């Protein structure tokens, strides 16, 4: 479980996160949703330590990440897999080397075992015969799948995803959502997804946190979000014509 307790984060005079508290449960797909600029990405970057919080605590299974030194944080980070908006694959490495990278860095497995693990992870994300391709030779959806394979290579306890569907067509988006959901359930991972894609929320969201103007505005599940009376949530959920028609 990941707990966020009363965190504040400012950039100069811009107070981005205001007293945000939330918990993200193990074995569930936890989603952070909200408009662009609401503070979702800042929140997820605070959780993984890419941004230091001004005050408050981030707790990974009773371990306070905010009060840890570099070495202690490093040990927690080995348990975190992250999927970035742009996949963030290493350009100079091929698919196999990308997925093998965390294994090379943090395990003493023999090379054959590493290759087996790479093939297992690529198989999990339904990718075959791509081991020797470079990121520049992959489509957007394939890049995301390779990034998921890399994120799960070290059997992470926590999987964090920053807008995993951005730039993908609807079919590929659903494929990526389902992959993340399956991996979460199968390996009992605490997954946190930052998105503004309502389709993802309805498809795989077990627990949803709505961020509005830097504050945690609403929490619930994917059924409750469609029936809430909260005005800001409704404005966000039913912003598109398609969702308005579905509501009617």
């Amino acid at each position: 479980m990941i707990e966020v307790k009363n965190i504040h984060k400012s950039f100069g005079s811009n107070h981005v996160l205001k007293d945000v508290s939330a918990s993200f449960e193990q074995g569930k797909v936890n989603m952070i949703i909200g408009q662009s600029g609401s503070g979702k990405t800042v929140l997820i970057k605070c959780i993984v330590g890419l941004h230091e919080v001004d005050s408050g605590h981030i707790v990974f299974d009773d371990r306070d990440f905010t009060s840890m030194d570099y070495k202690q944080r490093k040990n927690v980070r080995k348990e975190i897999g992250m999927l970035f908006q742009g996949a963030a694959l290493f350009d100079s490495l091929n698919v196999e080397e990308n997925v093998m990278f965390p294994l090379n860095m943090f395990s003493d497995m023999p090379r054959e075992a590493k290759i087996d693990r790479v093939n297992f992870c690529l198989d999990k994300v339904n990718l075959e015969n791509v081991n020797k391709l470079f990121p520049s030779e992959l489509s957007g959806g394939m890049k995301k799948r390779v990034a998921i394979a890399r994120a799960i290579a070290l059997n992470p306890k926590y999987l964090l995803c920053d807008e995993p569907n951005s730039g993908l067509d609807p079919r590929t988006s659903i494929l990526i959502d389902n992959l993340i959901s399956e991996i979460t359930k199968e390996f009992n991972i605490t997954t946190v997804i930052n998105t503004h894609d309502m389709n993802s929320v309805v498809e795989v969201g077990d627990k949803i946190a709505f961020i509005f103007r830097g504050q945690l505005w609403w929490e619930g599940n994917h059924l409750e979000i469609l029936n809430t009376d909260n005005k800001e949530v409704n404005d966000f959920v039913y912003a598109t014509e398609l969702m308005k028609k579905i509501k009617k």
Partner: protein
Amino acid sequence: MLGFLKELGMYFILLGKVFKRPDKGKLFRQQLVFEIDKIGLDSLGIVVIISIFMGGVVAIQTAFNIDSPWFPVYSVGFTVRQSVILEFSPTIVSLILAGKVGSRIASEIGTMRVTEQIDALDIMGVNSANYLILPKVVAAMLINPLLVIISMFLGILGGWLASTFTGLVMSAHYIYGIQLDFSAYDVFYALVKTVVFAFLITTTSSFKGYFVKGGSLEVGKASTRAVVQSSILIILFNLILTQMLLA
């Protein structure tokens, strides 16, 4: 002024992260070999061309400027040797490498920053500064002196070719000149300068790339700034080291 001090502080904090023990020795060695190839061997061609022509031009200019019976003809060889060893090879070659290697390092690391590849390394628990920058710094400090030694040899050879083929100086006089009053300390001085310049080029360029914010436009600007600042630092430290080592 405050901006400059802030940048200087960030530079030294980055160096503190760079000069740590690598997470995996085997990966560091692999990266080191890769960087030696990229920084050193890929620059060999331009170093060869520049050095030969540089030596040739110095020889011809010297020959024309000492057109007086008071100056012995062998002073052409002597001047070429001294100019090439003391200044042209270590400084000019380093300035060329600041352009070629510095821009490559800044744009490579800058692109990794804007495409979140550095964030990905940090989240994995990898010391990204150490993993990305240390092999480049060590590689340049090892391979640049070798490039400069090659440049010295080729510069003197270029001077000989230009002198003898144009008939300005006889081969025997030139060879006598390049052996006259040779001091090994001059080579030592040149190599010390080269190592310092290699450190400045790689750390300045890496610093510029590592802290890029924005997109491709900012990466381009960082790359330009890396070359300009490395070149200025080379010229500044050339003066300081010359005063320290030769005065």
